[in-house]
């Protein structure tokens, strides 16, 4: 039987069945994004607290829009303009939020593990929207949805991830997810960002230093954002990164002809990815954004109100059977 989700904290501890269930539940919401009237009353009267202790625009907007389209209200907490700046502890901040009776909390924090700490202490579902260098589970789920839609299935692909793997929670969540589906995962980037220890993260992972080798035979290429503040002399200059690791059209030809290119955004054109690739037919970048809404709607719907995958469909219950 499918284990019911109480929170979404990370991908690592999810089962294949739980992941497939979430992807399946996202389908009706994908199609919903095409409706002329994008507003449901399903979560009317519910409140989602969106607490971001670290800057973010797109993930925050995506969660807020997902909540709004389900009919829920949102409470927003932004670290820069909040009591966090005044020295309040994380626990006090989230307890204060909880005292306003939201039905779920979506949080991002620069400390790895912060959502776990909060989930243990609050009564309401916690959704991890990115914690430190640990996990970003909704990103991995929306990437999986995009891969399954574009490539027909999720299982067994050759996945290449390019960039700063070590500091990337996107990479970590994706590695955990895709590894559960038998992917062969190749990590590639400057040696300081792709330490060999990453190979023990999950089964089927290998580290490669030359991009040509990493791209050879790839079915999916995930390009990570390069944080410019990490690029500096003498360790690695931006020009050097571009020269060695930028995903260009020419390099993409080394991958399988129908390889899918993904990027979690925000994209820096001309640094980690070339415009021709970002805008090319193999790019799934904008689908990722739309799928993000579907995944987040499915999760909010599932987690708020004690959603259970194994619960009987009320329409199938005896007293409602004939409605």
């Amino acid at each position, binding site marked *: 039987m499918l284990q019911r989700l109480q929170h979404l904290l990370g991908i690592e501890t999810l089962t294949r069945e739980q992941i497939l269930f979430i992807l399946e539940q996202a389908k009706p919401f994908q*199609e919903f994004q095409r409706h*002329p009237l994008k507003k449901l009353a399903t979560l009317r*009267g519910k409140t989602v607290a969106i607490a971001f202790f670290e800057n973010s625009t797109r993930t925050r907007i995506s969660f807020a829009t997902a909540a709004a389209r389900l009919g829920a209200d949102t409470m927003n907490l932004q670290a820069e303009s909040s009591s966090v700046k005044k020295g309040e502890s994380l626990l006090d901040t989230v307890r204060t939020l909880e005292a306003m009776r939201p039905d779920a909390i979506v949080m991002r924090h620069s400390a790895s593990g912060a959502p776990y700490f909060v989930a243990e202490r609050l009564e309401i579902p916690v959704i991890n929207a990115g914690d430190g260098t640990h996990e970003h589970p909704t990103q991995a789920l929306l990437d999986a949805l995009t891969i399954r839609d574009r490539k027909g299935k999720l299982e067994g692909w050759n996945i290449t991830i390019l960039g700063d793997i070590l500091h990337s929670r996107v990479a970590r969540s994706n590695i955990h997810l895709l590894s559960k589906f038998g992917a062969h995962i190749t990590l590639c980037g400057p040696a300081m960002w792709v330490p060999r220890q990453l190979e023990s993260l999950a089964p089927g992972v290998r580290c490669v230093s030359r991009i040509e080798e990493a791209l050879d035979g790839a079915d999916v290429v995930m390009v990570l954002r390069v944080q410019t503040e990490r690029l500096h002399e003498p360790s690695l200059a931006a020009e050097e990164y571009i020269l060695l690791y930028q995903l260009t059209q020419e390099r993409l030809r080394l991958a399988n002809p129908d390889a899918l290119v993904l990027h979690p955004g925000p994209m820096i054109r001309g640094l980690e990815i070339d415009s021709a690739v970002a805008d090319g037919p193999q790019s799934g970048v904008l689908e990722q954004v739309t799928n993000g809404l579907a995944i987040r709607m499915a999760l909010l*719907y599932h987690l708020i*109100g*004690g959603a259970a995958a194994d619960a009987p469909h009320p329409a199938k219950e005896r007293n409602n059977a004939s*409605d």
Partner: protein
Amino acid sequence: MRVVEKRQLLSAEEINRTLQRLAHELVEKSGGTKDLALIGVRRRGVPLSQRLAKIINAFAQVEIPVGTLDITLYRDDLSTVGAQPVVHSTEIDFPVDNRDLVVVDDVLYTGRTIRAAMNGLFDLGRPRRVRLCVLIDRGHRELPIEASFIGRTVETSDTEIVEVRLQEIDAEERVMLVDRVS
């Protein structure tokens, strides 16, 4: 609590004959098939709508578009059911604007499912007309909703349940009246 079967309301043969009649009535009362489209409500409205379209196709030689509607997200009891029901896809691959829609379901009871179905449909556009076709009308309405096309009207009590079994979903074909005994 257990349930006991009280009697059979329709046999497989009777279901078929009822659908034949409903299909003819539908075309006749619509003044043809122009703009006509059927919307099956998940789950058992779906095979019923497909069968109706097939019957119409057989005697009128027209392909009537058929869509599938999942009303889960439009239910009015989500906050009281405890565990959230699983959502399924709505598959309506034609514009509903200005269409002459017939919503198809197996049993009409409180009317709440149909209320939800209409909310779902109007999120997709503005149909010219919406009518309702059901295999069984068992009474006990809680909303001002009536069907335009009814297979059979059945007198029931509160504790009774009308169970529709269709080949496509249940691997058997009949309609039963069952009762709950505690």
